[in-house]
């Protein structure tokens, strides 16, 4: 665990927010504005506490993400209790109340969400899209899975039925496949009774690399689909990329970065040394 004192920690969070905006994240990633909103809460540190970072990802540690939701939920109950001490000029109470009030304006991310929609309803079968957002606290990592599924012949689902299946079955499955590459996830889900996988896309925010000018935040987009005719992999952080076991699946895994303007040259040199042509956006640190 790495810790940053309050001022540096807050600045780190602000830089991560700027990087999130610069990363140009589309619908296949967790909603960047909502993540930036949650980071706003992380940036408001409890009085006297440093910011704890996860060493592997340089993102705020799991406790920091969790604290925002919990303290915000408790704030309406705690604030009235602090009022008298605040009025009496008790500085710790004033600081604590200011912290809680700041959190009241924050909209924390839900730990996970599942959204199901009907894409196409034909005479003999239907196609669905299932979008699963997960805050993987153990990593910590923010991930969005997008599954395009089709009913196999003989099985008919309604959106409501599929939504229920997505909530129950996929949520359970995703605990298992959450750490797998999309190709493995697609292969695992292919076995799901009554559904064929048309496409699995995983958008992931993080990890970040440290630079004197600020965090270099990455985002990874992976896609596995039988309609994808080639394999494209450019991920300098991947120690080993597993090729899809199923030959019928095409596979792509592309990482991109948002780095401080002052870090761009260094970062491009680092990528070049690894033979990577990752896209690099910049933000003002």
């Amino acid at each position, binding site marked *: 665990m790495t810790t940053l004192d309050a001022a540096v920690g807050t600045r780190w969070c602000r830089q991560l927010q700027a990087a999130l905006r610069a990363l*140009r*994240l*589309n*619908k*296949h*990633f967790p909603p*960047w504005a909502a993540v930036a909103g949650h980071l706003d809460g992380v940036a408001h540190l409890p009085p006297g506490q440093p910011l704890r970072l996860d060493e592997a990802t340089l993102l705020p540690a799991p406790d920091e993400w969790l604290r925002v939701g919990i303290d915000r939920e408790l704030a309406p109950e705690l604030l009235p209790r602090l009022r008298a001490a605040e009025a009496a000029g008790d500085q710790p109470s004033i600081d604590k109340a200011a912290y809680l009030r700041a959190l009241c304006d924050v909209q924390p991310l839900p730990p996970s969400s599942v959204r199901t*929609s*009907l*894409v*196409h*309803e*034909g005479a003999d079968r239907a196609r669905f*899209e299932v979008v699963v957002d997960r805050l993987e606290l153990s990593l910590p990592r923010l991930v969005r899975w997008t599954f395009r599924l089709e009913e196999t012949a003989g099985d008919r689902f309604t*959106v409501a039925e599929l939504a229920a299946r997505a909530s129950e079955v996929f949520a359970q499955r995703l605990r298992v496949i959450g750490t797998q590459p999309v190709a493995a996830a697609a292969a695992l889900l292919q076995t799901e009774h009554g559904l064929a996988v048309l496409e699995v896309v995983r958008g992931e925010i993080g990890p970040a690399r440290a630079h004197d000018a600020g965090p270099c935040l990455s985002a990874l987009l992976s*896609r596995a689909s039988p309609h*994808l005719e*080639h394999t*494209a*992999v*450019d991920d300098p952080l991947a120690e080993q990329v597993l090729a899809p076991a199923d030959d019928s699946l*095409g596979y*792509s895994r*592309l990482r*991109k970065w948002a780095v401080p303007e002052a870090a761009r040259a260094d970062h491009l040199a680092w990528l070049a040394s690894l033979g990577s*042509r*990752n*896209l690099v956006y910049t933000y003002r640190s």
Partner: protein
Amino acid sequence: MSDLSHRGTSVAGPPAEAALDALIGQFSERSAFVRELVQNSLDAGSGRIEVVVRQQGPELVIEVVDDGEGMNREIIEGYLLTLFRSSKEDDLTRIGKFGVGFVSLFAVRPQLVVLDTARDGLHWRVVFDADHTYTLVEVDEPFEGTAVRLHVGLSGPEAAALAEEVHHAVHYWCRYAHTEVWTEGFGSEHFGWGPEQVHDPFTTGLPGEVLIEEPGLRAVLAYARSDPPVVGYYNRGLTLLERPEQAVPGVSFRVEAADLEHTVTRDNVRRDDGFRRVVRRLRRAASESLPSAFFGALQQSLGTEPDQHQALLQIAAANPVVRIPRDLPVLATVDGRALAVRDLRAGPLGVRSRGCFLADAPDRLTEAIREAGHLVFRTHGAEVAVLQRLGIDARPAHEAWELPEVVPHALVDAIAEASWGLPCVGARFVGAAVGRLAIYQSRPSALERWRGPPRRGTLVIDTEHAVCRSLADRRQDLAAPLLLLAVRRSLGVRTEPSAEWLRALETALESA
């Protein structure tokens, strides 16, 4: 660029070239392509879309850039470059359907159109010439998303006119879009804006509206101020149509629904089964949800949000489909009491018989009128419009009533004490008598209806009147009879003055 380049004859193919020209000419506005490109960007799942217009030498360059999932070769060749074939035509999660939207950009007669798009690590460029022929090449340089650049041979005021059309179009079509849309115009002394985010809150802008959110549909409805009401149809926040229309009688709304689609010419909404489903849902919301939202807001705003309350009442008075519940206390009197429609007609006399009055603000007169059992509403309040709709006449209180406040005044006291045969008092006037030097009252200081001078009773002289004030600092033995003379003239009294009054005047004049 790689050597995978492919030369196409036309986006339409030779036999369809004439049809393509006809189609391009059918778009209702030449800037309609802005909507089409933004729609494509939304369908591609973009998180941010930028519409940039810049003057670049002799060319106006219009660029729409997104960070969506881009297109692969199959989509480009199979759908983008094939008229009437859309990759999205059977996809309910996407807006575009016909496969004709992209050609709308040729309506501005660009000399060149460059489309860059990337997906899954492959990057493509399509270059369209003015004659609609195209070249497709694979690009080595990495990028993501899709960028479409139109190079139009315009400069100066002509370029500015098109630039402003694009600027207006972005706001009109995209202000409720479900993703960030930004626009900027620069590079010319004739135009320029932004960078600015294009975003408006999804609301009718009318008070007392109700929000309906359910799978596939989001709508805001409110009772309309105008007739026919202004309505708006949208698909995922993109404007399809906005105009006055009686789709739901008396109700303005904005509705976005996956069931709503443009006509091919983009100047209307398809009136199909999907449209009818949406309208049926809106009508149900208008009858089931809107009344409680509207009257809840009307009741809640009374006394707490005066401007909001007045706006709601104006609508209630003007909109024939709004029926104010008889027992809902939403009408504010000038002194702040809340009355229901039922209260206006209650009692054996009712307001129709007793009359109803108006005043700018509460004062001694309105208080007296209220104590006398009558109602007084604000002159400029929306309550007046409600009264009119109910067929209740209301007159200004200060024209209908007089209320003198008796005050001691030396000259008037002198007149009263003299034996001139006139009982009189001094008073400050409120109401219809204001501006008059004197009136008669049967009971001085009583609230009385103004019935016009002259009458019999006690003479009430306005101590604030200019004549009274000008005489106040003169010798009392002279000023008192002169005041009485002025009062007689103001009342139109033509009879001879009394002998006592004449003697008093003579005495005063002799000693002067």
